[in-house]
């Protein structure tokens, strides 16, 4: 569907997506539309296919059926690096940082993705990029840990570092898979503020998979509830909160 100026209305469109693993259907007939600049939370019980959905969008898994369309272009089953280069960057559920590199070195990697990675050049970023890295580290509360090995960071700090690296990649669509897992209440709050601030201060579209309802309540205007591989409901926090069925499948079961 195109808006007036010929630009697609949705940054991301997922049509009839399906993924089976042997006999197990992880994602089933899933349709989803994300508007430009939207901040969307995806919730749902464990094993309902949320991470699989991300994997299908980013090319880490190839769908059994269905299509993924990013900014009007079909990207179904493209290779991972090519999908990334269109501007879709993700934070994995298990924090994935380069543990053997320092925090600063981790942050530089996305910058190398944008330059022609010369074999004989110096591996330094420009003054401006250095400045940008330090600002990003400030934003994810890691400015003091720039020289620390990423492997030595606490679980929550790794999550922040990964978000910082995703930001350094200048995403158009950012996918965050359980960004507050393993965080204290205070850290969760900081992360919620950060995600909200990112969404408001830039035109980055964001999809967040979250379990923490406090987080969801704070950040999301629109929530998608998944159940058994499909979309179960979409609505605001209040609508979701008031929905009896959702309590049965999700809230009721888990809390």
């Amino acid at each position, binding site marked *: 569907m195109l808006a007036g100026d010929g630009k697609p209305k949705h940054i991301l469109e997922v049509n009839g997506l399906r993924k089976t693993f042997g006999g197990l259907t992880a994602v089933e007939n899933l349709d989803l539309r994300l508007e430009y600049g939207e901040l969307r939370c995806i919730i749902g019980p464990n094993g309902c296919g949320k991470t699989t959905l991300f994997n299908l969008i980013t090319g880490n898994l190839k769908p059994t059926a269905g299509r993924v369309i990013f900014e009007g272009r079909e990207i179904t089953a493209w290779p*991972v690096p090519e999908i990334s280069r269109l501007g879709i960057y993700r934070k*994995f559920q298990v924090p*994935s940082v380069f543990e*053997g*590199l320092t925090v600063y070195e981790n942050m530089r*990697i996305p910058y190398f*993705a944008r330059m022609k990675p010369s074999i004989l050049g110096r*591996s330094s970023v420009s003054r401006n990029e250095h400045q940008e890295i330090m600002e990003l580290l400030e934003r994810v509360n890691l400015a003091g840990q720039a020289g*620390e090995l990423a492997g030595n960071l606490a679980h929550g700090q790794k999550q922040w570092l990964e978000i910082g690296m995703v930001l350094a990649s200048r995403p158009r669509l950012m996918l965050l898979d359980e960004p507050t897992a393993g965080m204290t209440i205070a850290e969760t709050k900081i992360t919620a503020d950060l995600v909200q601030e990112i969404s408001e201060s830039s035109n980055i579209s964001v999809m967040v998979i979250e379990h923490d309802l406090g987080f969801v309540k704070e950040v999301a205007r629109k929530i998608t509830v998944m159940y058994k591989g499909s979309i179960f409901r979409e609505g605001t926090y209040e609508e979701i909160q008031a929905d009896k069925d959702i309590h049965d499948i999700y809230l009721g079961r888990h809390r």
Partner: protein
Amino acid sequence: MLIPGIPRLLVLAFFLLLPFVGNLYLVNQFTLLLVYGMFAMSLSLLWGYVGLLCFGHAVFFGLGAYIMAMVTKQMIPGMDGILSSSLAGILAAVGFNALFALILGWFLFYGRLSGPYLGIVTLAISVLVERIFINWYYTGGYNGISSVPALSFAGWEFSDPRHLYLLVFVLSLCAYLFLRRVVNSPFGAIISAIKHNEARAESFGFHATKYKIKVFAIGASVAGLAGALFAAAAEFVSPTELGFKMSTEVLIWTALGGREGLIASFMGAVTVKLLENYLSEALSEYWVLIIGFIFLLSVIFFPQGLFGRLLENRNKGWSVTSPQRSKTKKEGRVC
């Protein structure tokens, strides 16, 4: 605490001064040690910096040596005159290896081989090529090719062992500087990211497979250069240089020296070969046992190898604008 650069300068000074103080026997011996050291550095690039454990790396060394021998002995039809010079031999060895590794790497890495599978397949290739050369009458079969001409460039023959040594020394230094440049480049930063977490690197937009193929070709080329120099310096080449034994040896040198460092790997080769030259006669078969045992111990207790800490300085080469590192780092990459 030592200033990080000093042990490396000592290594440099030692190898530079050796031909002026050592006798001819020593100089000849060290010419080959330099060649083995260069070979070990090329494996260090693949294994230590990208995590490609290549069990059959000698195939590149041996092919380099055979190509050098065949070119300079005019055994390749149609290649005579300037095309049979030392320079042509070296270029052919390096070029052929680069091409061979690109093609082989394409199959290996697009076939998603990694870890032990990669090791086993490369080993199989090395053993296969060894068998081919053992059975190939034209290249002397089991005996290989002897009387390989000495190196000569533009009419200047390096028949004086000291001159030859200095030439090989300069080329080893160039190989080291080249490899160091590569690992400290943006390309090097990306391959180290791929080594640490391939899935993560791909999600930042890097085709891990393409990088692996390229770095494989670089490692193979340098191994080919070492092989070519070996053929000219030793004046012979035999199937041993391509096969199982040589492949395991270079693995041991690199592991013992410290695979995550170029000079450390280089010194691993020099040290083990030197010890072998002096001890293997006295200890006969026990030598293999002892070196195997030391190898095991080092893998378990010194993953950084004997020289990893001494000779390598992780901070060196990383960006000038990078901030001070904390002193608490426990392990990690050296370069």
